[in-house]
């Protein structure tokens, strides 16, 4: 780590500050709206139903985060640290649900487990337990978010120096205890960051809670917006969401910094020797099969079934190529712009740690639990009034994506920069290179994989984004997500299946960027 308190170059600080200020526009809008309402804001805040919403929302976040950790961490350990058969294939398969939009996941779960769903038809029973409500929402949200935890945990396990665990084992600690006392604490910062991303996603998601009929803050915000005349209650509830984000950030920071383990030896860490699973390997394969089956095969299967039903009902199948091009283009731009915007903040945090860096980094998360509708309306407000040339252009849509998905880019860069010691940069400077040349020759190549991973996460999220896209896209700029939405609006699931499957197929290759060179590294291990 760089020496604390080193003053950052002014240009860097200004740049990072400007980026974060832009990210805070939705918050500014909410404050304006709440101020409009005057004292009414407090009435809404102290309303008993607001408290209940907060409790229900927190329960949902806790449930999904816990489920995501339970699914992701053991799986990540199995694919990185053991001789699990086919672990490279599993590693890809369990990340694939990341490309399934959560509202599509919810539709599919309901199509399978719901009333007259595929399961009921297959079993031929009269009635199954109701799949909606809390557990349905937890299942659908876990499906679409656990890969965040998985990817970060996987990276951490791969980079973990086996010497730590070997030392523990050498001291006579059992394998299980060393796992609990050494391995898990060592990857805790990564799991915490992954959990934060999951929590932010859950706080902001509307599609799942609406389909699963679970009353969360987001759902209440939508209902309030739709009652149209008074925008104060919605704004107050949205600010409550920001408050919950702040709490999540505190938890994450504590989990990240408490009892951190460092390797002190010189040189690079070795690769760990894979743990031999022995007879337990089939149990492990069953586990991975369950995870993949429930979270990947099941939704894809339901979509294929709907597609088949549409074809057999003689519905015309139109492949939405134009929409696919729009989705790909807008998402690629979003990835590029968001990573570019995140670089100054990430560099500030890692190379010039201090109060400024910490405040800016934490502030950049502030708006991320806001539902897409709130972000969209805030940008409508500012752009229509003060920036009408960009209003309803692609530029504003890309900007909205950047606002929504900034932490994903930051998390990618974070893991990249954390791995590059500042000493490599200092060495380059010592050899007479200027700061720019150093950045170009040393830092850029070293953080490239982190930047690519961040870009890929932003890309995948932008491909799936719906609420902001609906309101901010240029007129006629249909995307795969808006196609799915349009079809499900009128209950045409067979028609929704085509864009949904196309979205999944087009997004999947991008996961290779997230994986980066991992496959090869895992091979060379041991």
């Amino acid at each position: 780590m760089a020496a604390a308190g080193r003053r950052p170059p002014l240009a860097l600080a200004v740049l990072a500050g400007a980026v974060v200020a832009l990210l805070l526009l939705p918050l500014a809008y909410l404050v304006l709206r709440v101020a409009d309402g005057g004292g009414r804001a407090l009435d809404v805040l102290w309303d008993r139903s607001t408290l209940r919403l907060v409790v229900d929302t927190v329960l949902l976040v806790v449930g999904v985060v816990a489920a995501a950790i339970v699914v992701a961490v053991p799986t990540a350990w199995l694919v990185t640290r053991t001789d699990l058969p086919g672990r490279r294939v599993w590693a890809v398969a369990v990340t694939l649900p990341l490309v399934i939009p959560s509202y599509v996941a919810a539709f599919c779960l309901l199509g399978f487990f719901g009333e007259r769903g595929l399961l009921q038809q297959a079993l031929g029973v009269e009635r199954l337990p109701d799949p909606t409500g809390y557990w349905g929402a937890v299942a659908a949200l876990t499906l679409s978010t656990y890969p965040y935890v998985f990817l970060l945990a996987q990276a951490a396990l791969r980079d973990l120096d086996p010497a730590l665990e070997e030392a523990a084992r050498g001291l006579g600690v059992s394998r299980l205890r060393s796992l609990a006392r050494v391995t898990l604490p060592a990857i805790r910062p990564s799991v915490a960051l992954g959990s934060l991303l999951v929590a932010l996603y859950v706080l902001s998601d509307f599609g799942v809670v609406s389909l699963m009929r679970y009353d969360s803050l987001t759902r209440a915000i939508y209902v309030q917006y739709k009652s149209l005349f008074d925008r104060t209650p919605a704004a107050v509830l949205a600010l409550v969401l920001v408050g919950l984000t702040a709490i999540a950030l505190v938890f994450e920071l504590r989990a990240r910094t408490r009892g951190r383990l460092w390797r002190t030896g010189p040189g690079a860490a070795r690769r760990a020797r894979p743990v031999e699973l022995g007879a337990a390997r089939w149990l492990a394969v069953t586990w991975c099969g369950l995870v993949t089956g429930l979270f990947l095969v099941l939704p894809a299967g339901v979509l294929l079934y709907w597609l088949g039903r549409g074809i057999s009902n003689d519905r015309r199948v139109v492949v939405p190529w134009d929409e696919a091009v729009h989705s790909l283009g807008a998402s690629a731009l979003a990835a590029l712009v968001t990573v570019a915007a995140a670089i100054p903040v990430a560099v500030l945090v890692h190379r010039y740690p201090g109060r400024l860096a910490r405040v800016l980094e934490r502030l950049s998360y502030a708006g991320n639990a806001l539902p897409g509708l709130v972000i969209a309306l805030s940008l409508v407000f500012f752009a229509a009034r003060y920036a009408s040339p960009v209003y309803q252009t692609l530029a504003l849509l890309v900007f909205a994506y950047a606002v929504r998905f900034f932490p994903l880019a930051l998390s990618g860069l974070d893991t990249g920069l954390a791995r590059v010691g500042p000493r490599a940069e200092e060495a380059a400077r010592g050899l007479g290179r200027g700061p720019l040349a150093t950045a170009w020759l040393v830092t850029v190549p070293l953080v490239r994989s982190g930047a690519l991973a961040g870009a890929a996460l932003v890309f995948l999220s932008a491909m799936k984004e719906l609420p902001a896209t609906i309101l901010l896209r240029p007129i006629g700029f249909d995307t795969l997500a808006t196609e799915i939405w349009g079809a499900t609006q009128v209950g045409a699931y067979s028609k929704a299946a085509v864009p949904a499957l196309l979205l999944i197929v087009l997004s999947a290759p991008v996961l290779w960027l997230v994986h980066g060179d991992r496959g090869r590294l895992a091979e060379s291990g041991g």
Partner: protein
Amino acid sequence: MRAIGVLAALFGALALAGCGGGDSGSDGPLTVYSGREEELVAPLFEKFTDATGIDVEVRYGDSAELAATIAEEGSNSPADVFFAQDPGSLGAVDAQLEALPSKTLDRVPERFRDAEGRWVGTSGRTRVLVYNTERVSHGELPGSVLELTNPEWRNRVGIAPTNASFQAFVTAMRLSLGDERTREWLEGMKANGARTYEKNTPIVEAVAAGEVDVGLVNHYYLSLVKEEQPDAPIANHLFEAGDPGSLVSVAGAGVLGSSDQAEDAERFVEFLLSDEAQRFYVEEAEENEYPLVAGIDPPAGLVPLDEIHGPDVELTAFGAELSSTVELLRTTGWLS
């Protein structure tokens, strides 16, 4: 680096493809915000362009979200016309709408337009009770929506409290029977175990699936679900005359006061009420809506509009009444 080159080229291409947004120049195409689904109304826009040579750009979205968007845009709204699903969304932004010419307004009966002429209904729909024909016999069907709180309907009814069309029906009940009676009914429905759904379509699907036996919906969702499941055992039932459960409501349109193409915008609304467009609802549209202009018969199989006597309420008031309705739904536990 090559990747960046590719992306730069892509940006250029998309900027070209996506340009034209934000443009509200007077000679550009007419901009319509449509809360009506593309699936249902896209052919109407084509017919308009064919008939008049005026190009139309349509922003599709949810009616209430588009109303909120228009409100946030204020006088800078690029929209020329707001084509909405319900009188509530139109009423919410009526201050931003200009009065329509009387020759347009006079095409439809007074009860289907704004009292001050700022928006006009373009097609009609009735609230109905959709029922599962295998699980509910004809004789069992209730005469009034109020009967649904009776014990024989326990756990058998589906409603969509977050949906605009249900809220409009509750507004109608409040305006015709009073807040107290409405509160009792809402509480009774809660006690009777009515199940909630997000929108009309899932209710009709649930009735088709036997998840619930009956549901309160707009009449035309029946034909949409039949499209997807031709053999579904479902049918619509109308409540008796004057019952709030048989509210006749409209989808409608208005012209934005901030439009710089007001003349073309008015022509568009006029077109929606032309015989050609009205006949579209009867002859071509999948969704089986009612035409509102006199002399054009409704689609086969529908009870004619003048034989349906809904509650005696003014659609004009629905926008302003919405927040009280939402508040009532909140205090009775239907909304959070």
